[in-house]
Each structure stands twice: as structure tokens, then as C-alpha cells.
């Protein structure tokens, strides 16, 4: 700041006052310290800067000024140089020593004639300016206003910086919190994933264990089945010889001693013979049945029509006296065991012939039918049929749904059919109504062609 050396301009005696700015609100006001030992000079200076509307604090000595400076921050200090006791410069020196006021602008108020000394003593303190008495109000006001302005700007900047710092701290805190939250969430997620993976592994192990157990159980069952079949075979086989011998003795008795036997005795012997023969047939059937299980299934491309025609021809010849209409449709070519399949048709067709014995005009049909996406073969007759409520006994061994007096048989034919069909991986079922004939369907598992197509579409599993 420059020292004002020029004498006051007469034309400035009554300077036009710039319109005073509106007084700032209380909180925005800056503090101005006026230090002078003389009341009048103090009052005069106060009057001049009062227009600025800032907060004016007065001190009448260096000491008092210092005291004031302890309590508050000031935008500018107007400091009289000539004061008793501690003069302006000494006061200023101490002011500068305090951290809180080391940069507070000081305007020394001094008389013109002391300029050189004052200037040299003052400048070393930094941030000083001089104003010469008599004070030109406008000059004083301008200088103070500039410094107040500067102070306020600084203050604003500091506040803004503080806000910024606070904001940044807050943000950092929030970021830290959010990071902590995320870390927690991550941790929780990681734990969940681990738990999930563990559960998966456990499940997989359990599945494997289950599959292993199923495999074992299936093998056990298969072995058990084989045992059962072998047992059936050996029992049937062992029962044959003594049975045959019983029959033999009955025959010998009839032959050798018929003249000695009363008619009832001969009758009893005959019954014995018949029953023994019946039992022998059952054993033979049982043996055949158990042998089917033992056999290896050998699959060949088989024309079912050829098989059926073969079986039908034999039956026609054996039943030439009967009126039977044979309706044999086109059947597919399948991969199956021809020998066993022939047995299936033999049993089904001879059953059809047998149970339609009471019909004047028996009709036997053989054909193929689609069931969903499977093709099945059927054999239908218009014979005596059976009651569906007994259907679950149809394929049982030695299970008969008719009296032996009406229709002979051991009740093994359908059991044989069922076993062969199941060995091929297929299903067999029957439908009937009493007096309305019966139809038997069977599928052969993976060897059956697609509906509407007469050739193999898939080669059977080995």
C-alpha cells in the first residue's frame, strides 16, 4: 500500500459520498479494531468507517488492543502510532508475534511529519499501510473497505475449504462404510457360495452313493432272480423222475393186474394217471419257463409275419375240423430272438384257438397298433374272454382264470409270453370282457419301429 503524501485536494473538501452499501447481516460482519489513546480521534475514525456497516471494536491502548485481539479475529487494525506507554510499533510487533494475528492487516495512523521513521519501522512488520492525519475519510474508508473485503473473501475461502474438507471427510467416511458393507456382503456371499458348493458336493456324493446302492441292489436282485430261476429249474427237474415213476407204476398196475382189479380201482388208477400226467405237464412248463430266463437273448432281424404264418399253419392243421377265420395284418420286421418270439405267438395263438372253441365262427386277428409313440403287436379273439378284475393274475405262473374242466391247460402259457416279452425289454397286457373275447398287446422295448413305418428304426441294445 502506498503512503499518502499529497496534501488534501480542496475540491475534496465536500466529496460526493458514494451510496453506502447495505449493512451485511450480523454473522457476516467483519471486526475492525481502532486503537488510539485519544477519544476524539477514536470517535472520528469510528464515524468514518461506521458506514461500512462492519463491527467496530475500540481500544485505547496497546495493551487493551492486545487484549481484544485475544478474543477475536479482525479484518483490519487501525493503529495510532503515538501512544503513551506501548506505542503503535511496539504493539504491532507483539501483534505480529501472535499466530492468530500475524497476518492481520494494520493501518498505522500517523502525523505527516513522522513519515520517514515510521515508514522504515513499520514496513518490516509486513501487511502494513499508513494513513496520515488529518485523515481523509474517503481514503480511510476505501482502504478499510478493501481490507475488509479481502478478509471476508479469505474467510469465505477458508470456510469453503473447511466445508470441502468436511465434505471430503464425510465422503471418505461414507466410502469407508460402503466399502465395509460391500466387504461384509462379499464375505456373506462367499460363505454362501462355499456353503452352496459344499451342499452340491454332498449332493453329488449322495447321488453317487445312491447310484452305487441302486447298482448293488439291482445286481443283487438280478443274482437273486437267477438263483430263483436256477432253483425252479432244479426243483422241477428233480421232481420229474419220481413223478414219472409214479405214473409208471400206475400204468403197470393197470396193465398187469387189470383182470384182478375191481372197476373202481381201475378208475382210481386212471385218475391217478391223469393227475400225474397233468403234474408232469406243469413241471415241463415250469422247466421251459425257467430255461427262458437262463438263455442269452440273441436278436436278429425277424419278419414277424413269417413267424405268425408258421404258427398259424400248425394250428390250422391241428384244428382242421373247426371254423376259424384268420386275419393276419402286416407286421413289422423287428430285432428279436426268433425262437422265443415264435414261442410267444405259439402261446398267444393257441390260447386264442382254445378259448374260442365254443364259437361257431371263431375270428382270430393279429396286427400292429400304435400306443402313444410305441408300436405294439396284438392278438385278438372273439372267444370266451375273461373278467378284467382278475387281470393281475393273467401272467402269473399256474394262474388260471378258467376251470380246467372247461378249458385245459396248466396256466403257464401267458407266464412264458410275459417272461419272453420282458426279457426283450417290452411290456405285455391284456384286455377282455366275459363272453366278448380278449386281446393281448405286447411291445418289444427299443426294438419296435416308429408308428407308421414297417422297418427297424433302432438296432436293439445288446
Amino acid at each position, binding site marked *: 500500500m502506498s503512503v499518502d503524501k499529497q496534501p488534501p485536494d480542496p475540491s475534496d473538501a465536500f466529496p460526493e459520498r458514494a451510496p453506502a452499501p447495505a449493512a451485511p447481516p450480523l454473522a457476516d460482519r467483519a471486526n475492525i479494531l481502532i486503537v488510539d489513546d485519544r477519544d476524539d480521534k477514536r470517535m472520528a475514525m469510528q464515524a468514518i468507517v461506521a458506514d461500512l456497516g462492519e463491527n467496530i471494536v475500540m481500544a485505547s491502548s496497546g495493551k487493551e488492543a492486545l487484549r481484544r485481539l485475544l478474543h477475536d479475529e479482525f479484518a483490519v487494525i487501525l493503529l495510532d502510532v503515538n501512544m503513551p506507554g506501548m506505542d503503535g510499533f511496539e504493539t504491532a510487533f507483539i501483534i505480529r508475534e501472535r499466530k492468530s494475528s500475524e497476518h492481520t492487516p494494520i493501518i498505522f495512523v500517523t502525523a505527516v511529519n513522522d513519515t520517514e521513521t515510521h515508514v522504515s519501522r513499520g514496513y518490516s512488520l509486513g501487511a502494513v499501510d499508513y494513513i496520515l492525519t488529518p485523515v481523509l475519510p474517503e481514503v480511510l474508508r476505501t482502504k478499510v473497505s478493501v481490507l475488509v473485503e479481502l478478509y471476508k473473501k479469505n474467510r469465505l475461502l477458508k470456510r469453503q475449504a473447511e466445508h470441502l474438507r468436511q465434505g471430503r471427510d464425510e465422503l471418505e467416511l461414507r466410502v469407508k462404510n460402503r466399502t465395509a458393507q460391500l466387504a461384509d456382503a462379499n464375505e456373506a456371499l462367499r460363505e454362501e457360495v462355499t456353503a452352496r458348493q459344499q451342499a452340491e458336493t454332498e449332493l453329488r456324493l449322495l447321488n453317487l452313493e445312491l447310484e452305487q446302492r441302486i447298482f448293488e441292489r439291482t445286481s443283487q436282485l438280478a443274482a437273486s432272480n437267477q438263483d430263483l430261476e436256477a432253483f425252479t429249474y432244479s426243483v422241477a*427237474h428233480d421232481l*420229474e*423222475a419220481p413223478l*414219472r415213476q409214479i*405214473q*409208471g407204476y400206475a*400204468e*403197470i398196475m393197470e*396193465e398187469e393186474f387189470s383182470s384182478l382189479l375191481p372197476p373202481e380201482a381201475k378208475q382210481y388208477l386212471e385218475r391217478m394217471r391223469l393227475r400225474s400226467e397233468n403234474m408232469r405237464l406243469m413241471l415241463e412248463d415250469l422247466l421251459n419257463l425257467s430255461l427262458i430266463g437262463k438263455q442269452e437273448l440273441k436278436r436278429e432281424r425277424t419278419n414277424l409275419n413269417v413267424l405268425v404264418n408258421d404258427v398259424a399253419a400248425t394250428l390250422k392243421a391241428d384244428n382242421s375240423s373247426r371254423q376259424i377265420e384268420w386275419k393276419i395284418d402286416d407286421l413289422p420286421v423287428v430285432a428279436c430272438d426268433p425262437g422265443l418270439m415264435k414261442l410267444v405267438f405259439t402261446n398267444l395263438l393257441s390260447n386264442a384257438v382254445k378259448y374260442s372253441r365254443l364259437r361257431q365262427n371263431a375270428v382270430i386277428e393279429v396286427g400292429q397298433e400304435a400306443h402313444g409313440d410305441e408300436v405294439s403287436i396284438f392278438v385278438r379273439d372273439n372267444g370266451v374272454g375273461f373278467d378284467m378284475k382278475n387281470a393281475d393274475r393273467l401272467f402269473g405262473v399256474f394262474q388260471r382264470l378258467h376251470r380246467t374242466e372247461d378249458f385245459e391247460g396248466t396256466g403257464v402259457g401267458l407266464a412264458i409270453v410275459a417272461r419272453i416279452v420282458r426279457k426283450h425289454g417290452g411290456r405285455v397286457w391284456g384286455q377282455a370282457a366275459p363272453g366278448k373275447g380278449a386281446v393281448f398287446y405286447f411291445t418289444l422295448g427299443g426294438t419296435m419301429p416308429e408308428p407308421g413305418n414297417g422297418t427297424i428304426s433302432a438296432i436293439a441294445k445288446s
Partner: protein
Amino acid sequence: MLMADDSEDDRLFLRIILKGNPRLALVGEVSDGEEAIAYLSGAGQFADRERFPYPDVMFLDLKMPRRTGFEVLGWLRTQSFEKPVVIVVSGSLLPEDAPKSLALGAAAYHRKVMLKQERDALFREIEESLAARGNGRSAAQSAS
């Protein structure tokens, strides 16, 4: 005729059947394969060919203890002396037994079913086999 069967009842039945044909004389009955071989080779007590003449025809059961019918057939093939006509008479239902018996040198294979059915067929086969071999032979030579 020599009969080899481990079942007393079956031997009885066969005996009764053979009674019906005067041309056939039952000269011996053995109850297991080893005895059959002993008889044919004239070993032990069977060296006495007066009491145990060498047979023209042998009825052979398959299922016997100590040596089975198949083993006897096998043994016979290794022998150089004149072999009897062997008729395998078996209670088994196994389909492979018939061809196997014939392959091992049996002249015929019969299942043991009821007497009446067996009889005529049996006699016929015996006659045929003997004729093929040349019958009217006298007692068998004794084995060395």
C-alpha cells in the same frame, strides 16, 4: 441186454418192457457208470462170462453216480473190442442231450416216458440197430 441205471424203479420198468419181447434177454443190471465199465471190460467178478455174458445191447442211463452215461460212452470209444449197441435212456429234458449222446456213439436216444409209448419204438430201434450190426451173434468175447 445190459442195463445201466441208478434208479431201481427205472430198472424195474425197463425190465417189464423187455419182458414183452422174448427175443431180448436181460443178462445184467448195473447201477452206476463204473460198474458198467467193469462189466464191459470183464473186470473183477465180471470176468466170469458164463454168469455175466457180454451184451449185444446196452441200455444206458445218463445221470448216474461214479461215472455218468456220457463218461461210459466216452470210455467205449477208446476201446477196440466189439461194442454193444448202446441205447441211451434218459429222464432229462435237456434238448442238447440227444445229439450229444448220438455224437458219442449211441445208437439211439430215448426219453424215459410212460411205458406204453416207449415200448414199441424201443423194440423197433433195437431190431434195426442189431440188423445194422449183424445179429445172431453168440455170447460176447471176453475182454483182455
